[in-house]
């Protein structure tokens, strides 16, 4: 499939066709996952990341009932994104010893999301791109946290995972930027999502104690609170996102979803 869409201002600079052609499958082909040994603390955070990365179908359940499913370029990306994240979650499941990737439902559900989607129209696509970008930013901080004390074999796996995810982040950033720049309504919807949703996207699949553990590990303490500011800053520079919304986001990340 070729060519980019023409109803959004600004050129799409991410090559979706190239992305789909070069998808990363089973990470066990690149890294000897079974040989990696981790500490109990690392295992806990990696197990949480497994749940968060594995939340693709739960997320798509809310996303595809809106106008986002009509955008063939975006769905081509999402199909491959879900495939790559499946294998990221698989590797994390193996390393953390958490067993099969847990699944569940995210808040909202198809009726509420579809109804909201009808009212939002095509502007919802930009908001979904911001959600994907923000999810990646938060998870990236979590990977930073794990990597800080990781032994070389685990570092090798994390490098492969982050390399895979970097293309997702690039797509979401590119799409969020051009869609928000050309559609104020999209920016308003994105802001509402930032304020109302739990971050990262899969957080509601975790129980309260596990969510607290994730927040404490990733955003706890003075140094780690800077990580929340870093995420908020990256969101604040998106077109149409107000500083107040970004500040609220930073506070929410530190406080926990």
């Amino acid at each position, binding site marked *: *499939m*070729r*060519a*980019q*869409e*023409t109803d959004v201002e600004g050129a799409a600079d991410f090559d*979706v066709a190239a992305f*789909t052609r070069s*998808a990363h*499958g*089973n990470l066990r082909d690149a890294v000897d996952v079974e040989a990696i040994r981790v500490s109990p603390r690392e295992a806990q955070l990696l197990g949480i990341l497994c749940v968060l990365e594995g939340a*693709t*179908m*739960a997320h*798509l*359940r809310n996303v*595809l*009932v809106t106008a986002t*499913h*009509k*955008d*063939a*370029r975006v*769905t*081509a990306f*999402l*199909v*491959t994104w*879900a*495939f790559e994240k*499946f294998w990221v979650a698989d590797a994390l499941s193996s390393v953390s010893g958490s067993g*099969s*990737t*847990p*699944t*569940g*439902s995210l808040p909202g*559900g*198809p*009726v509420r999301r*579809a*109804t909201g*989607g*009808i009212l939002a129209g095509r502007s919802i696509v930009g908001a979904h791109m911001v959600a994907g970008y923000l999810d990646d930013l938060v998870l990236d901080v979590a990977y930073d946290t794990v990597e800080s004390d990781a032994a070389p074999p685990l570092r090798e796996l994390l490098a492969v995972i982050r390399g895979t995810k970097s293309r997702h982040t690039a797509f979401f950033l590119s799409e969020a930027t051009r869609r928000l720049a050309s559609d104020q309504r999209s920016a308003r919807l994105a802001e509402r999502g930032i304020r109302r949703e739990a971050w990262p996207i899969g957080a509601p699949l975790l129980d309260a104690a596990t969510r607290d553990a994730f927040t404490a590990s990733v955003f706890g303490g003075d140094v780690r609170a800077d990580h929340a500011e870093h995420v908020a800053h990256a969101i604040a520079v998106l077109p149409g996102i107000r500083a107040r919304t970004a500040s609220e986001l930073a506070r929410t990340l530190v406080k926990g979803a």
Partner: protein
Amino acid sequence: MAFDIDKYTATSVAVHWGDLDLESFREHPLDDTSLRTLRYMTDVEYHTVCYTRDLLTTPSHRDPDVSAFMTMWNREEFWHGEALAAVLHMHGVTVQYDELKAKRLKLGWKDRLDPIKQSVLGTLVGSDFIATHMAWGAANEWSAITAYNRMAELEENPVLAELLRRIAKQEARHVAFYTSQARARLAASTKAQKLTRFALKRFWAPVGSTIMERDDVVHVMTHLMSGDAGRDAARKVDRSIASLPGLEDLRIVEDALDGLGIAADGDDRVSIR
């Protein structure tokens, strides 16, 4: 036998065609009738994500096996679209994101309300609704395999036949998943059997009917499923569907062909050439 989801995910790949001599189509191009059918198939494969949307409105996504299957299945179907688009490309037809998007946008209010309808039904019916979706998926996949096999037979083009054979082989694994799910869920619930029987008998239509124009559906069904051989293939799909618990004697494919006015006897493709 239960479907081995781990084996399926570990061996799921994008269909490959790099070793096939697609350049040969420049010397031996497909005719317009076949290209129109191929374009229909391409669009339907790309639109699989729309069916995923409906499937996700049921509680099925909470099942790790279903979730894993949907991830791989979606990607495989996307690549079927890419493979068929590569053949079209050799004939000067380029499939663009914008065109597919335009087709989805044209569906209008029905498409917007469908997930709400599906979700409400799913809530009212409960988990038995998953059985209906699984049986529906099996019917669609059986139909797809039949369509690819018929196209390969009719064209007698070795390059196209090999590509379609590879696609049909992947579709066969999808059938295995859907039938294993449908069989188990239908066997466990009389209510699921009644609901599924009613839904298939009343609402099932050839794959692509909800997205493509009626003229295109009639064209493809006439091309692939008309005449004695086409009708025999349809009966075979019906027999497969009827082998699922509680779906005995269903003949949804034949009924659909009759409804579209597709000739049930005579030589293949007589009415379209």
